[in-house]
């Protein structure tokens, strides 16, 4: 299990014990964290799991793939810190990761 902290747009913080091997999106949904939708179930087909990840741990994330990059380009409020949570797999490397969620996923 890896500790991940989700911070909502309104500043509410929630730390969860995320299961290693699951996607960040699944960890959020399964732990009832609001702000991440994952409408397509993690198929990189909807961009409703958009989140922002910064700081030193961001360097431990897998590189953005082409499909993820294309989906992100169309999302509102995209920044250099933007990722799709369904494309990130939780592992011990990400212990203490801080994930911010946008105001809206639509």
């Amino acid at each position, binding site marked *: 299990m890896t500790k991940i902290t989700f911070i909502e747009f309104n500043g509410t913080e929630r730390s969860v014990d995320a299961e290693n091997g*699951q996607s960040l999106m*699944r960890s959020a*949904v*399964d732990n*009832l964290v*609001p702000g991440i939708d994952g*409408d*397509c*179930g993690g*198929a*990189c*087909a*909807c*961009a409703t799991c958009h989140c922002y990840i910064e700081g030193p741990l961001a360097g431990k994330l897998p590189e953005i793939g*082409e*499909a993820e990059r*294309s*989906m992100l*380009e*169309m999302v509102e409020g995209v920044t250099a810190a933007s990722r799709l949570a369904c494309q990130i797999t939780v592992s011990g490397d990400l212990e203490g990761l801080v994930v911010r969620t946008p105001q809206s996923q639509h």
Partner: protein
Amino acid sequence: MSANVVIVGGGHAGGQAVASLRQGGFDGDITLVTAEQSLPYQRPPLSKAYLAGELPRERLLMRPSAFYEGAGVDVRLGIEVTGLDAGHRSLTLSDGGQLTYDHMILATGGRPRPLPCPGADHPAVHYLRTIADVDAMRPRFVPGACIVIVGAGYIGLEVAAVAIKHGLRPVVLEMAPMVLARVASPEVAGFFENVHRGAGVDLRTGVAVSAIEDRDGKAVVVSTAGDRIEADLVVAGVGLLPNVELAQAAGIDCDNGIVVDAFCRASASGVYAVGDCSNHPSRLYGRRLRLESVHNALEQAKTAAADICGKPLAYDQVPWFWSDQYELKLQTAGLSQGYDQVVIRGNMAMRSFAAFYLKDGRLLAVDAVNRPAEFTLAKRWIWDRKAPSPQQLGDDSIEAKALAV
């Protein structure tokens, strides 16, 4: 006492309705009645990773059981609604129970169309709609087995791709002259036919099933071409019949689904219908639609919930779908029916292209294969009713996002 909601059906739409009601501030009682023995789960993996045995059952759930407990939802698993009295707003259940509602969301979905041929009740014949369906076919879904797939729609083609990867020998029989006949152009259908044949699928178009016979427990599929194909497993994916019977018997308007308005309201007071079972108006296409897609189910559930929460928002979306076959990701936006022009962008041989469908110069839809940028952009162009010219659409030397609208 605050109002209560009864949700009939625990698929994508039913599951989303629960979440959207609570997120929208609804604090009355919510009861979710589902005929399945499972909390709402994702259907797309059933014909992909779950069939392939790569995804444990628990990972299919849309939300964990803790969610429903925390949200104070009364979930009735394995219970069917056997009767509806719309005038008295009451329901009878298969366990003898009764429910009354202030608001009811019909999210009854659909059931697979049965094969219409003699012998369709052979034990080797399976459909693919539920977790139980896949669990039932799994013992016969083993390497070396001969599987006859009837219907080359999304389900049939996805099963064929998994079958090949899993070491089965699939024969696909499609009644129409081409695969994906209801949804794709000859160009795109031809592409998928080549991919499947190249992968080893014995694909036969223009062939239907006349009968299914038995030979020592194996099924013998008799085709209209006169072939007799012995099969360990027959999987039929020949369409979905909307579950409208409950509504119909209660006098609620139905016509290719339960008829609803832009707010998902059906013809009886307090009743909504969402997802695969609903027939709704499309502002974008100027006609009524019944869409079988995850996106439609989720968005209609959100629409119904918003109306119940007193914040109505008309349903207005570009339909979109996806299908994963082999390493190909097909993403479709819009509806192509009635097109008079197809523009191909990219390279079919490289398995990276988009087919744009236009009518009278207006972009209706796109089929994108491994082209997520074109898919996402086209979804916006269709919505805006403003797209690059056909010539630009076909010019792959310009980056998609640089195309002038």
